[in-house]
């Protein structure tokens, strides 16, 4: 049998391009997105923030995508594997276009800790992807919560220089509300990942 060339079946990925300013015709939620339907188990939280550019100006044409585990730390779709079905209607995904002030609000339940490398648990977090006019390759970041002791040993946060970790941690404002601003540049530039 002739050996198969190693590269024969490899496909190279289609590269990204900017989402541009006109994705609104897809009719995403503007300003607010609800990820967890009413009645989903867990602690209800609302994460609000503003997306700003290098001069602190609001970015009013960004799309923020969120992917998260449920309150039990299970990823939607892995319910069969764990043997515990997810609650109907919770698919862990949401996206929201920033409003006229660059603002967004994510209404959901706080995710549970999920498995990380070497069987260590990761601190509760939201996976965030950001698209906008002027952004050619999606920007990847995470939202952590400032009241989680597990942040101190989170394997992803540990990769981030200590003085910049603050940009990944949403600040509690009481009543389940958290603040998470996203700065694409500037003194408080948000940490973005190479994943």
């Amino acid at each position: 049998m002739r050996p198969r060339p190693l590269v024969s079946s490899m496909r190279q990925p289609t590269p990204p391009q900017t989402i541009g300013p006109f994705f609104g015709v897809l009719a995403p939620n503007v300003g607010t997105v609800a990820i967890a339907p009413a009645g989903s188990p867990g602690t209800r939280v609302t994460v609000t923030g503003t997306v700003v550019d290098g001069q602190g100006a609001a970015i009013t044409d960004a799309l923020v995508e969120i992917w998260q585990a449920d309150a039990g730390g299970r990823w939607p779709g892995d319910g069969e594997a764990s043997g515990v079905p997810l609650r109907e209607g919770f698919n862990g995904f949401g996206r929201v276009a920033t409003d006229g002030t660059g603002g967004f609000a994510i209404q959901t339940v706080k995710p549970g800790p999920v498995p990380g490398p070497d069987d260590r648990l990761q601190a509760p977090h939201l996976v965030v992807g950001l698209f906008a006019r002027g952004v050619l390759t999606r920007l990847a970041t995470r939202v952590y919560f400032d009241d989680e002791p597990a942040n101190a040993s989170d394997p992803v946060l540990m990769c981030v220089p200590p003085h910049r970790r603050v940009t990944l941690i949403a600040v509690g404002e009481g009543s389940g509300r958290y603040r998470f601003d996203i700065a694409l540049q500037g003194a408080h530039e948000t940490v973005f990942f190479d994943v």
Partner: protein
Amino acid sequence: MSARACRRPKPDELPLNDTPAYGSTALRHPTQPLVIVPRTLSEMTGPAHGEALIGALDHDLTRQHSGEPLGERIVIAGRVVDEDDRPVPHTLVEIWQANAAGRYAHARDTHDAPLDANFSGAGRVLTDADGRYRFVTVKPGAYPWNNHHNAWRPAHVHVSVFGQSCLTRVVTQMYFPGDPLLALDPIFNSIASERARLRLISAFDLALTEPGAGAWVSV
């Protein structure tokens, strides 16, 4: 969806967020280096979208209104495959585009080309079991933008694909072969690798055509 890893793209095959020729990147690209992090279950999983999301005419942008839109009918079809050429079934593919005159049905589009009351310019489908998708639409027009003197975007269709995980999530643009504006476009040329750029240009496929609709394929 089970967890899936995939290879990291080569740096020259991704557009640089710091692309000075594209003016909007100036204040919107991170200036700090991206932080390299391990890929965890959080990234190796991703959302699934159900059939309930898809309307009966979401794949046919020429039949979403009471009348017919103006413009050249085209079919855009292709497959979503993974890095080993295996089909990615039941994944969400979305498109949006300008109308045949180069105008978006969007409040922020101030180009003075005419709107078309019979064209919204947005579509979505799930791929079939073999990873295939198919849209019917009109060929979008080129349009001017403010990036530089007499700047025109090449005709393009915006495409959004989810794939198997957060790692495969991509938002991109499909172009048309032979477009002289491509060589002048800083967005298309933000990708250093020519081979990678060429993957964004669709190919004409006569076999896909139907009476009344040309066909362009993108993978």
